[in-house]
C-alpha cells in the first residue's frame, strides 16, 4: 500500500467545489433578497461547471482525484478525495441544484413595494449550504470531517422545511431536527470509539488497520444506525412524511432528491471503504430487510394517501429501500466478483435516477398545488389538460420510479434484479417486483386523475409559469436519459476502488 498521499493535478477543483457555494453564502449576506436571485444565476452554473470538470478529471485520469489540505498528509492533515461515485454524485447534485434554482427563481420574491422578507435570502443561503455540505460529504475522507459535513447538511435542511413559518411545518421541522440529532449523536459516539481504538479517523488508514473486535463492531453499528435515522430508512422514518410534504416545492425537491442520499452515501463509505469486508452476511441481510420493509410499507401507504405531496413523500420512503440492496448484493465488490459490480452500478443508478425523478415530481406537485390551491388527489381531475408540461414531467418521472423502460429507474431495477439472480438471493427479487407494482399503482392512480375529467372549472386555475414547468420537465427527461447511458459507465462508478 502506498502511504504517501499527494495532491493530484486537478485536486484544487475539489476545494473549489466545497468553497464555491460557501462564497455564495457569504455574498448573500451582503445583498438584498432580489440580489440573491441574481447571485444564484452566477453561482449555480459555475458550480455545475465545477462538477463537470471534476467528473472529466476523474474519468480521464481513471483514478481518484485527491487534494491534501495544507500538504499535511493524513493522519496529521486531512485529504479530499473524489472517486467515481463522488464525481457522479456531485454531478447529480449539480443538476438537481440548477433545476431547483431555475424553478425557485421568483418563488420567494415579493412585489417591490413591500418591505424585504426573510425567506428569499434564507432559501438561497440554505440551497448553497446544502450544496457545499453535500460536496464536502462526498469528497471527505475522514470520519470527523464527514461528521461536520453531515451536520452542515442537516442544519441547512431543517429550516428548509419550515420556510413558510406555519405551525405544522415548524412542528415537522422540529421533529426532523430532533431525530436527526439523535442520529448525529450516535454517529459521533461511533466515530469517537473508532478514534479511541485506532488513533485515526482517516478512511484510507482505517481500511488497512480495521479488525472485527467488539468495540469496532459496536462503533460501526452506532454510526450506521445514526445514519439510517437521517436517511429515514424504515422504521426510522417518522420525520420524513411531514417534513418532505410540508416544505415548499423546491425545498421538498432538495430534501427528497439529495439530502437523504447524503447520509446513505456515508453508510456506503463506511462499509465499502473504511471497513471493507467487515459487514457480515447476516448484517447485510438485515439492512436489506429493512429496505424491503420500506419498499412494501412505503409503497402500500403511498397508495392510501389523500394528498399528492404526502404520496410522493411515502414514495421516497419506498425508493430509499432499494438502495439498501447494495449491501448484500454488492458485498463481493472488494473481492472482485463480477456480479457485485452489477449490483453496485444498479444501486447507484437507482440513487441518481431517484434523485432526478423525485425532484421533478415534487416540482410538478408544487405547480399543481399552485394552480389548484390544494393538492387533494381526489380533486386533481383534468388538471393535466391545463398543465400538459407539468403532467408530462410527472408522468415521465413516475415511469422512471416504476421502472418502465427506457429510464434510469428501469436500468437500475433490472441490474439489481440481475444481481439477485446471480447472487442466488431471489427473495429480494420478489420485493423489487412487488415494489414496482405498488409504484405503478400509485403513479397511475395520480396519472388517471390528471388525465380524467375536470372537477373544477379550468378557468379558475391560477396561472403557472412556463419556465418552472420546464425546470421540472428537464429533470424528468434527465431521469429518462439516464437509461440510455452506455454500460461502460459502470466502470466509471468503480474508479478509485
Amino acid at each position, binding site marked *: 500500500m502506498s502511504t504517501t498521499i499527494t495532491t493530484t493535478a486537478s485536486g484544487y477543483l475539489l476545494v473549489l467545489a466545497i468553497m464555491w457555494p460557501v462564497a455564495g453564502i457569504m455574498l448573500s449576506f451582503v445583498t438584498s433578497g432580489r440580489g440573491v436571485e441574481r447571485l444564484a444565476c452566477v453561482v449555480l452554473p459555475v458550480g455545475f461547471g465545477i462538477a463537470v470538470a471534476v467528473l472529466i478529471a476523474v474519468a480521464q485520469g481513471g483514478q481518484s482525484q485527491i487534494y491534501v489540505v495544507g500538504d499535511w498528509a493524513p493522519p496529521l492533515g486531512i485529504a479530499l478525495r473524489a472517486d467515481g461515485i463522488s464525481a457522479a454524485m456531485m454531478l447529480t447534485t449539480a443538476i438537481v441544484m440548477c433545476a431547483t434554482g431555475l424553478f425557485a427563481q421568483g418563488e420567494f420574491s415579493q412585489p417591490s413595494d413591500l418591505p424585504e422578507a426573510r425567506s428569499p435570502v434564507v432559501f438561497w443561503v440554505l440551497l448553497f449550504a446544502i450544496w457545499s455540505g453535500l460536496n464536502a460529504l462526498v469528497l471527505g475522507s475522514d470520519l470527523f470531517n464527514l461528521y461536520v459535513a453531515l451536520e452542515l447538511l442537516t442544519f441547512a435542511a431543517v429550516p428548509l422545511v419550515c420556510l413558510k413559518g406555519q405551525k405544522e411545518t415548524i412542528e415537522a421541522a422540529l421533529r426532523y431536527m430532533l*431525530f436527526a440529532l*439523535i442520529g448525529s449523536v*450516535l454517529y459521533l459516539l461511533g466515530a469517537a470509539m473508532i478514534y479511541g481504538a485506532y488513533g485515526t479517523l482517516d478512511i484510507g488508514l482505517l481500511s488497512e488497520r480495521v479488525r*472485527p473486535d*467488539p468495540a469496532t*463492531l*459496536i462503533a*460501526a*453499528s*452506532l454510526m*450506521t*444506525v445514526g445514519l*439510517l*435515522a437521517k436517511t429515514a430508512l424504515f*422504521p*426510522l*422514518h*417518522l420525520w420524513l412524511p411531514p417534513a418532505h410534504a410540508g416544505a415548499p416545492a423546491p425545498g421538498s425537491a432538495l430534501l427528497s432528491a439529495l439530502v437523504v442520499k447524503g447520509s446513505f452515501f456515508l453508510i456506503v463509505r463506511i462499509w465499502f471503504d473504511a471497513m471493507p469486508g*467487515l*459487514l*457480515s*452476511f*447476516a*448484517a447485510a*441481510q*438485515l*439492512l436489506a430487510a*429493512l429496505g424491503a420493509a420500506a419498499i*412494501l*410499507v412505503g409503497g*402500500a*401507504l403511498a*397508495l*392510501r394517501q389523500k394528498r399528492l405531496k404526502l404520496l410522493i413523500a411515502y414514495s421516497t420512503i419506498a425508493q430509499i429501500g432499494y438502495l439498501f440492496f447494495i449491501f448484500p448484493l454488492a458485498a463481493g465488490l472488494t473481492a472482485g466478483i463480477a456480479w457485485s459490480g452489477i449490483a453496485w452500478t444498479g444501486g447507484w443508478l437507482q440513487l441518481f435516477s431517484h434523485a432526478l425523478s423525485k425532484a421533478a415530481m415534487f416540482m410538478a406537485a408544487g405547480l399543481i398545488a399552485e394552480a389548484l390551491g390544494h393538492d387533494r388527489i381526489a380533486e386533481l381531475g383534468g388538471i393535466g*389538460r391545463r398543465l400538459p408540461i407539468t403532467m*408530462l414531467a410527472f408522468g415521465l418521472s413516475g415511469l422512471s420510479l*416504476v*421502472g*418502465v*423502460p*427506457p429510464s434510469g429507474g428501469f436500468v437500475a*431495477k*433490472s441490474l439489481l*434484479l*440481475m444481481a439477485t*439472480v*446471480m447472487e442466488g438471493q431471489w427473495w429480494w*427479487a420478489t420485493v423489487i*417486483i412487488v415494489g*414496482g*407494482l405498488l409504484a*405503478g*399503482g400509485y403513479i*397511475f392512480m395520480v396519472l*388517471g386523475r390528471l*388525465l*380524467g*375529467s375536470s372537477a373544477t372549472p379550468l378557468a379558475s386555475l391560477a396561472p403557472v409559469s412556463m419556465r418552472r414547468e420546464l425546470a421540472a420537465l428537464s429533470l424528468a427527461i434527465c431521469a429518462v436519459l439516464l437509461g*440510455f447511458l*452506455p454500460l461502460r459507465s459502470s466502470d466509471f462508478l468503480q474508479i478509485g476502488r
Partner: protein
Amino acid sequence: MMTPMIASTLLASALAVPLAMMALALSRRGTGHTANLLPLAPLPALLAAMMVPEDTSVVLPQALLGLRITIDKPGAMLLGAASLLWSAGGIWARAQVRSQSQERPFTVWWLTTLAGSLGVFLAADMIGFYLFFTLVSLAAYGLIVHDDTPAAHRAAGLYVALALLGEAFLLMGFVLLAAGAPGSSLLISDAVAALPTSSWRDTTLLLIVLGFGLKMGLVPFHVWMPLTYSAAPIPAAAVLSGAAVKAGVIGLIRFLPFEAALPGWGEVLASVGFFSAFYGVGIGITQANPAAVLAYSSVSQMGFLAAVIGMGLAAGNRAAPLAAAFYAVHHVLVKGGLFLALGAASARLPRNAWLVMVPAAVLALGLAGLPLTGGQIAKLVAKGPLGDGLAGTLAQLSAVGTTLLVLHFLRRLSASAAQDSTEPPSSLLVGAWLTVAVASLVLPWMFLSTIGAASWNTVLSSEELWSASWPMLAGGLLAAVLWPWHTRLPRIPEGDVLAIGQRCLPSVFSLGATFERVDSYLRQWPIASMCVVLLVLLLTLTLAVP
C-alpha cells in the same frame, strides 16, 4: 431488388416514422389537425413488410442502446397485417376525434401504442422487445380512457393494473433469460437457444407464459378484455383487439424454445389455451353488448392460438411459430374488421343494414373457418402443430363453439344496427373497413405459398372442405336449438370472474389499513427511539455472526 441500404432504411423508418410523428404531435402547439397523421403513420411499416427482404437487420447506434431490429417471416406477416389494420383504424380514429379538444392527447397515445405494437414484431433483442412491449401495453391506457366515462376509467384502471403485472412477470423472466444466456448477448435468439439448459428454465418459462398469457387474455387473465373493448372508442377497440394483442402472440413465438421439445410445458400451455377457447364461447353467448361478445371471441381465439403454440412446443415442432403467426395474421384482420363493422353498423340506416351485415357475416364466420375464406386456410395451417389426436378433435369442437358465438354476435350486431340511426359513415370509412375485410379473405391465400404448409389444391380438396364445413353446420344447428332458450341464459356481467376478485378487494384494502396502523404506531416518538436502540443491538449482533 432493393439494395441493402434502402432496405435497412425502410425497416428503420417503420418504427422511426410513428415515433417521430408522436414527437411532432407532442410538441405542436395549439390544435393543428394532428389526427391527420394517424392513417399515414403505419405506412412505412406496411411497405417494409411487403418489400424488405427477409432477415434484413438494422443495428441502431449505441446512443439508442444499440437495439437491433430484424424482419423475419412471422414478423413480416404480422407486421403487414397489423400496419394495414392500424392504417384503417387511423382513418376511423381521425374521423372520430377530429372535432374534439382531446385530439392531441389521443393522437399521442395512438401513435405511441402503434409504435409499440409494430415494434414488437421487429425487435431482435430483449431490451428492445421489452421497450416496445411496454409502449403497446401502457400507452393503450390513454386510448381506453378517451371517452372519459366512469366505465372507461374503471376498465382502464383494471387494464393498467394487469398490464403492469404482466410487465413485472416479463421483466423477471427476461432477467432470468439474460442470466442464463452465454456471454453478454441480449439477442432473443441467443437467450432462447440457451434456455432449455438454463438452471432457471422452469421459472423462466413460467414467467414468460404468465406475462404473454396475460397480454393475450388467457383465462383467468382475460377479465380486462371485455371491459376494455366495450369502453374504448371503436377504432381503438379495433386496433387493440386486432393488432395490440398480438404482442403476446409474437412474444410466445419468439421466447419459447421450439427447437427443444418440452412436452410438460407445451401441454400445460395447450390445456390453458383450449380451456380459454371454450370458456370464451361459453361466457360470450350470454353477453348482450356486441363489443363484449367480440371480446370473448378474442379470449376464445387467443386460447386456440395458445393451444397451437403449446402443442408445437410439446412436440418440438419448428414449423409451429410460422403456423401460429399465420393464424394470428388472419385474426388481426378479422377481429379488427369486425370492430369496424360495429362502427359501421351503429351509423347505418336500418334499411341499408344488409350492406353491413353481409360483409360482417363473412368476416365473422371466417373465424370459425368458413370454407374458401382465409379462416379455412388458417384452421388448416393450424392443424399441423395440433395433429390428429385429442388436440385435433378439440380444435374442431372449438370451431363448433366459434360458429355458435359468431352467430350470436351477428344477431347482436343487427339488433344494434336497428337501434341507432345516426349519420351514415363516409365512403372513406366504409372503404377502409372493406379493405381490411377483403384483406382478411385474400391475404391468407397469398401467404399460403410463402409458408409452404399446404397448396391451394389441398385447401380446395373435398376432404378439407368437408372438414371445415361440418363444425359450422353443427354450430349452426346448435344455435338453432339454443335460439328459443336464449332469453333464459344467465346474464353474466362483463368480466365474469372479476366479480369474485372484487369481493376480495375489501380484504386487500384492510391489509392496507393494517399497514397504516403499523406505520402510525412506528412513527410515535417512544417507539421510534426504541427502534433506534433495537437496531443498534440487532446490527451489532448480526455483525458478530461470522
